[in-house]
Each structure stands twice: as structure tokens, then as C-alpha cells.
């Protein structure tokens, strides 16, 4: 198996390296997350440089192109993730609403009629 080093492959691998470097600098303390990210990115880079790996895997399970082998599960995962995120946001919003409402109800108070100077003159002005 020989590597395919095309301009597109170089650009994509460079992107992975830059992104990983940025995250390393920004979130250097979350070691475990970075480790997972490193493994995922490295796998991606290998698949980019050796497209034949994906192609062989794809053929093995009856998918035409190697790219599709990667993209199909990715799309399914993303759609599910997006629905779950929306749902979570909605649940969070509902909880947040109840919190704000509870504070509002806790602090509810009647407006007292103003005493003194303008007590009667201002009625239904």
C-alpha cells in the first residue's frame, strides 16, 4: 500500500495538525480529552494519506467508496447528536425558566399606593 500525497491530502492533514495544536495550547489541562482527540485525528490522518485502507474496508462490507465508509456512520451520528442537543437545550431552558419563575414568585409583592403628596389626585389620570 503506498501513500497518496495529493495537495488535498496535505491540506487536510495540515488542518488536523493545526487544530490539534490550537486545542493543545488552549485546553492543555484536559489531558484525557486531548488523548482521545489525538487518537481520532491520527486515525483520520492515516485514512487520508492511505485511502486504500478505507476502500478495502468499504469493499469488505459492500460499500462502493472508502469515503462513504467513513461518511455514512458520521452523518448518522451527527443527526442524532443534533437532535439530542436540541432536546437537551430545551430541557435546560425549561429548568432555567422554572428557576427564574421561582425567584420571581418568591419576590412577588403588591404595589403600594403612594402616600402623601399625590395620593388622590392621580387616580386614573
Amino acid at each position, binding site marked *: 500500500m503506498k501513500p497518496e500525497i495529493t495537495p488535498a491530502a496535505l491540506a487536510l492533514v495540515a488542518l488536523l495538525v493545526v487544530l490539534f495544536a490550537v486545542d493543545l495550547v488552549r485546553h492543555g489541562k484536559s489531558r484525557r480529552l486531548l488523548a482521545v482527540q489525538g487518537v481520532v485525528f491520527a486515525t483520520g490522518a492515516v485514512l487520508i494519506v492511505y485511502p486504500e485502507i478505507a476502500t478495502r474496508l468499504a469493499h469488505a462490507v459492500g460499500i462502493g467508496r472508502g469515503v462513504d465508509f467513513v461518511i455514512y456512520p458520521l452523518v448518522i451520528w451527527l443527526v442524532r447528536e443534533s437532535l439530542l442537543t*436540541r*432536546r437537551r437545550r430545551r430541557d435546560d431552558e425549561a429548568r432555567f*425558566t422554572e428557576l*427564574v419563575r421561582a425567584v*420571581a414568585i418568591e*419576590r412577588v409583592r403588591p*404595589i403600594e399606593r403612594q402616600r402623601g403628596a399625590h395620593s388622590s389626585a392621580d*387616580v*386614573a389620570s
Partner: protein
Amino acid sequence: MPAYNEERRVARTLAELAAFSGAEHAITVFLVDDGSVPAVDEEALARAKGALDVILARHGVNLGQGAALETARRLALAEDERRAPRCFDAYVTMDSDGQHRPEDVVAIAQAVREGADVALGDRFGGGSDVPRSRALLLRLARAFERLTTGLSLRDAHNGLRGFSRVALEQMHIRQNRMAHASELTRRISRARLRFVEVPVAVRYTDASLAKGQRASGAVAILVDLLQGFLFEERS
């Protein structure tokens, strides 16, 4: 009465309503300031309130009209300061920007007193001057609601609505923003409540039109409704 950044219009609306409050109609206003910046001017309210009882609650942040209406509903159904249940013949929601006339508020309350569970304001029966773009949008909303809720209302998105206590207990609003109107229609339809539509006038002013719903708002409502439909657990 929900209020969000209505500035002096809230006090003006209260003052108008105060003229109708007295021995004949004792009116308590549950005013929910939905995180206005600056907050509603309590001194102005105190000057304007006249014989009205005004109970003020304030959301620390802006949540939306549906959320404000729900807070007001909870306040009305909760016990009062003396821990006694509040007694009322009718519960009426209205906008705080002065688009509803106090005489219409009284008419809505009267319809509930006369036995309706729900009385809804209908601006198309009241000879109010509805701008054409607004009328078209409302007609579309009506067709949509007939499809989704099974209830055909002449004016589904009028903020002037009256409920009996029994009806109010069933009007739990989960839609924080403008989709609450459809949610209410659905609840009224499901609960098989007796409802009447009462002709009312709506006073369109520059301020109310500027703040009112646009066509883009309709898309946001659809998204909210779809999410509600997808994610709501049955209640």
C-alpha cells in the same frame, strides 16, 4: 399582564384599566415584568394604579411572553398573602402596551361570568383597523391552527383571553415564546372547554406594530412548535 420593555405604556395601560375598577369590578392585576431593562417603574405604577390591586413579579432575565403568562397564571392560582386561595370570577390576559381597550377586558370577563370557560378576543369582529399584512399573516396562522389543533378560531393570536378558574387550571403554558398561542388553542381544543369569541377592538400604534410579530417571527414559532411536538412528554 406580561410586560417587556414597554416603558411608560404599562403605567398608561394600568391607569386606563383603573378607571374601570371599583365597587362593580374588583380587579387584581398580576403584572409580570419579563426582564425589562430598565425594570418597570414601580413609582409610575403606584401613581397609575388607582383602585386596582397590582401584584408585581419580575423575571430576572427575559424569557418570553409565554413564560410571563405562565408566571401570572401560577400567581393567580396560588394562595394570596393570607394563605387563602384567591377567588375570582374571571381571569383575563391582556397586553401591557395599550393595544387592548379596558371596556373589552370587562366584556371578556363578563363572557366568562356568564358561563363560558374561555372567552377569546376577536379583532376581526370588532371593526378594528387591522393592517393588511397583519391580517394575511393571521389568516395563515388560523388555517395552520385548524389543521394542527382541530379548533377553528377567528383570531387565534389575540392577547386578550378570559378563563374561568376551572379552565385556567388546565392552561399550563410550556412554550416560552410566541408559540404559546397555538399551545393554548390546542389545550382549549383538547379539554373540550366551552369557548366564545368576543368582538374586541385592537388599537394599533406605531409602538405595538414595531414590537409585534413579523413574518420572520412566524418561522421561529414553527420551529418552537415542531420542537414542542417532538420533545414534549405527554401531560
